[in-house]
């Protein structure tokens, strides 16, 4: 065979190379866990549980227990007389959400109900969570406008709302029949708004909490942690002990630290307690001039905790993803973990849990020291520096992900817009959302004042004590907490936290970077990104996102 005859054979791969390299800019998906909420958990009274810091829940994602039947809507037979009661015959609403079952399941189920009641049509398109932001951004930015209703993390609103992509609902939502806007907790009203205008309807909330084994800690008279130092002490105590009676050593702490997963949200839940003390409007991530607050002793303390906790977790914690981590917790192999409210309902399902009624939640631990933003040093908490502290401990429960919300395409047909608002209001209305938030399969968590009614949770299987404890903590101490910390909600927030920060933290955990190098890498990366996007516009967006002036 001569070389000349083989030119074609040689040439083909070269062409393939060019085509292939073109395609490499947009490879296929990668996993990541979308925070989705669920219902709260139970918690039998533990002797030393502080009353003031009752359990709280949070939010995340995950394979919801498929064995659990979806809730029966209280109004499934006759949809709400308000939302879901109009005539939308011939109108189609195209909805985009992430691959369920959480979140997608209630949208599809209520979609069928709404169609029956209104004559309209609901098309639900799903995408892997890791692709959802890109899918929605591309659809909106290029004017493709394939969808009428976009469901998303409220933290994405900062990227979209300011660009005029979404319909301004300020004049519609507060009085929309059946939606009962005043019943939505203030933080979720805020998370559905941007720059003083309402752009979305919430049907979920997301706050992180620490979950703990009430049976194990209660037996030993150990109080759930109030500070991150206490968290480590408890984790150390139970590391290597058999916590589920199967004869194998278990873990003091299980935190899902896998790169590209949910770890950065949870890390920021630790970080927020060291850096935000003056209330929600102080913000967690930036100081004056949008200077990142990530190269200081507060970040250092959070990184120290992050690495130290790895010593008391499973050997693969650095690669622990959400599904596996929750599996460890519900199989009774962990004494502590950080999670969203899904960890409230998952233990209630006997088909997936060995820890039913023995998992409690406590508001995210905090610190007796707080960041002095001028010096970058940690200073002791006092009445001035930590006005919201409890027993000298500053807590800043972190609204990681910020809850699922639905926003409407500003370019959609007015009839479709009206139908979309009616549909998402129907999903959010108490008649539908009340049973949804108490059921794990939906991925929704309580976001209404009325959902603080213990009867809902008792009906879902909780004891009265557990229900009260959960609700007081989740809604009372966290969602309504005066120092609740909001997730980053500025343009390209994903790039700031889920790429730049996530990568540096992963490298720090793996020993690729020292603590100082990691902090500097995040600081430099954030500064460069801010300059690239525009410091003034980002500063304005950040102020708007936290409600600051």
């Amino acid at each position: 065979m001569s070389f000349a005859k083989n030119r074609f054979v040689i040439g083909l791969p070269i062409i393939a190379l060019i085509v292939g390299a073109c395609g490499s800019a947009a490879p296929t998906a990668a996993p990541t866990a979308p925070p989705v909420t669920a219902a709260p958990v139970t918690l039998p009274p533990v002797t030393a549980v502080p009353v003031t810091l009752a359990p709280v829940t949070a939010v995340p994602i995950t394979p919801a227990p498929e064995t659990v039947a979806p809730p029966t809507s209280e109004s499934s037979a006759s949809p709400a007389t308000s939302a879901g009661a109009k005539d939308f015959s011939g109108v189609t609403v195209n909805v985009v959400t992430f691959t369920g079952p959480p979140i997608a399941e209630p949208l599809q189920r209520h979609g069928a109900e709404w169609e029956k009641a209104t004559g309209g049509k609901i098309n639900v398109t799903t995408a892997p969570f890791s692709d959802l932001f890109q899918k929605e951004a591309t659809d909106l930015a290029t004017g493709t406008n394939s969808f009428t209703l976009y469901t998303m993390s409220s933290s994405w609103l900062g990227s979209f709302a300011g660009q005029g992509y979404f319909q301004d609902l300020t004049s519609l939502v507060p009085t929309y029949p059946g939606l009962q806007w005043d019943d939505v907790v203030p933080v979720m009203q805020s998370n559905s708004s941007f720059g003083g205008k309402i752009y979305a309807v919430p049907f979920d909330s997301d706050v992180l909490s620490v979950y703990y084994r009430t049976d194990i800690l209660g037996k030993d008279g150990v109080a759930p942690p109030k500070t991150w130092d206490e968290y480590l002490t408890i984790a150390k105590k139970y590391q290597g002990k058999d916590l589920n009676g199967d004869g194998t050593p278990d873990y003091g702490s299980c935190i899902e630290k896998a790169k590209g997963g949910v770890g950065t949200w949870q890390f920021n839940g630790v970080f927020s307690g060291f850096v935000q003390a003056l209330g929600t409007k102080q913000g967690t991530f930036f100081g004056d001039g949008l200077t990142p607050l990530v190269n200081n002793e507060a970040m250092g303390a959070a990184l120290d905790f992050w690495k130290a906790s790895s010593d008391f977790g499973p050997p693969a914690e650095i690669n622990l993803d959400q599904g596996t981590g929750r599996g460890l917790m519900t199989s009774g192999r962990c004494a502590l973990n950080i999670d969203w409210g899904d960890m409230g309902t998952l233990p209630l399902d006997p088909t997936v849990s060995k820890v039913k009624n023995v998992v409690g939640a406590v508001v995210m631990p905090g610190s007796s020291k707080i960041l002095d933003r001028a010096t970058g040093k940690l200073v002791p908490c006092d009445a001035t520096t930590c006005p919201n502290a409890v027993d000298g401990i500053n807590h800043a429960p972190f609204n990681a992900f910020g809850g699922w919300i639905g926003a409407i395409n500003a370019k959609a047909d007015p009839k479709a817009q009206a139908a979309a608002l009616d549909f998402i209001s129907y999903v959010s209305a108490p008649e539908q959302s009340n049973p949804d938030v108490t059921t794990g399969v939906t991925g929704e968590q309580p976001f209404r004042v009325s959902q603080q009614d213990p009867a809902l949770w008792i009906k879902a299987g909780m004891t009265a004590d557990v229900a009260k404890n959960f609700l007081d903590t989740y809604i009372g101490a966290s969602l309504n907490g005066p120092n609740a910390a909001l997730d980053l909600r500025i343009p390209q927030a994903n790039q700031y936290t889920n790429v730049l920060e996530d990568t540096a933290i992963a490298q720090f955990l793996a020993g690729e970077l020292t603590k100082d190098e990691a902090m500097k890498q995040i600081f430099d990366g954030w500064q460069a990104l801010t300059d690239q996007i525009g410091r003034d516009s980002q500063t304005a967006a950040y102020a708007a996102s936290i409600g600051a002036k």
Partner: protein
Amino acid sequence: MPPASVPSNGTTHLTPGPAPSEPGPEQHARDQARSTDEWRNPRRARNVFLWPALLVVLLLAIFPLIASLGLALSNVQLAQGGFTIKFTGLANFNNLLFGAERNIFLGQFKPPTILGWTTFIGGGLLMAYVLVRYLRSGRVSALGIVGRALGIAALTAFLWMLANTLLGDGGRPGTLTVTILYVVLGTGLEYLIGLGLAWLTIQHLSGQRFFRVVFLLPITITPVGIAYMFRMLTDNQSGPFAPLFAAAGMSNFSVLGDPWGARLAVIIGDVWQWTPFIFIVLLAGLEGRDIETEEAGLVDGAGRWQIFRHITLPMIIPVSATVILIRTIEAFKIIDLPSVLTGGGPGTASESVTLQAFQSWRAFNLGSSAAVAYSLLIVVTIVATAYARLVLPRTHRANA
């Protein structure tokens, strides 16, 4: 006979006709015949057949190539009612090579170890030797010198990066070096194993047909499925090998939590998946070889190894070289395994260049993502071109 010399049906009618000023029915018939004849002209016909395909290639390959270059030199932002593309020159590449992303893309630079210096100096001497030999060969051309100069510059930069990162004292390889490791080790192992399996398959052993199918199975499985499978296999807590890990006292050791364990897992998964591709191509090459030469060697008293080494292997070198090139280009784009298996971790230890591009793309940082992808394209082009220019001709000459 060359197609150009084939007479067409119309040529027999091409006799001198009336003057152009007197067009008549015959003239029209002649014009029509000429027109038909021109379309049958091989040169014109070639264009007719080629251009549709070329247009498709231009649309699907060249346009994205140019568009992604534009993205790599820009900053894309969501904006009022749409998006904006702001030209930023080489800022994305600057960030990648000298800025915040250098640490991830190129790795952490530290002074070379003795092995690092040895590698760098050894590589330099080897390049000098090759250059001198070329200059003395008497076949020197301007293009040859320029090409070799560029190749030497690229190789020197690579060796320096290798000496300072992978072989640096406290250094750490970036996604570029890790990807090259995947390519070199993965493709090398796949070739060796694929060749061995293909050789076994032609030995007329019992069950030959069965194993021929079995060896192909991994390539039929989706890469993400393979990644999840290997994730399960490397789980020393609840995976199928957990008892073995426990027996070895390694229950608390995480394969994927160790940088080299994670890279090794990715390589093993890649080898498992892609060896069948090389196997089937080499099997075709082996089955199509001329066995009379081997029989002659056997008659002359050559051993089996000698026959394989000096007769069989040279016969399949051309197909080997081509399949290695195809596999190499493909391997550079690895993303499925590291993404699912480790997410690129621990840290960035197992992250590939394509995965790095995807991380940026996922966050809508299209400029940075395109810059990473273009950097990969440049590397792949250099490697593929050098391979095609330097290796393939030798393999064909050796086989001639």
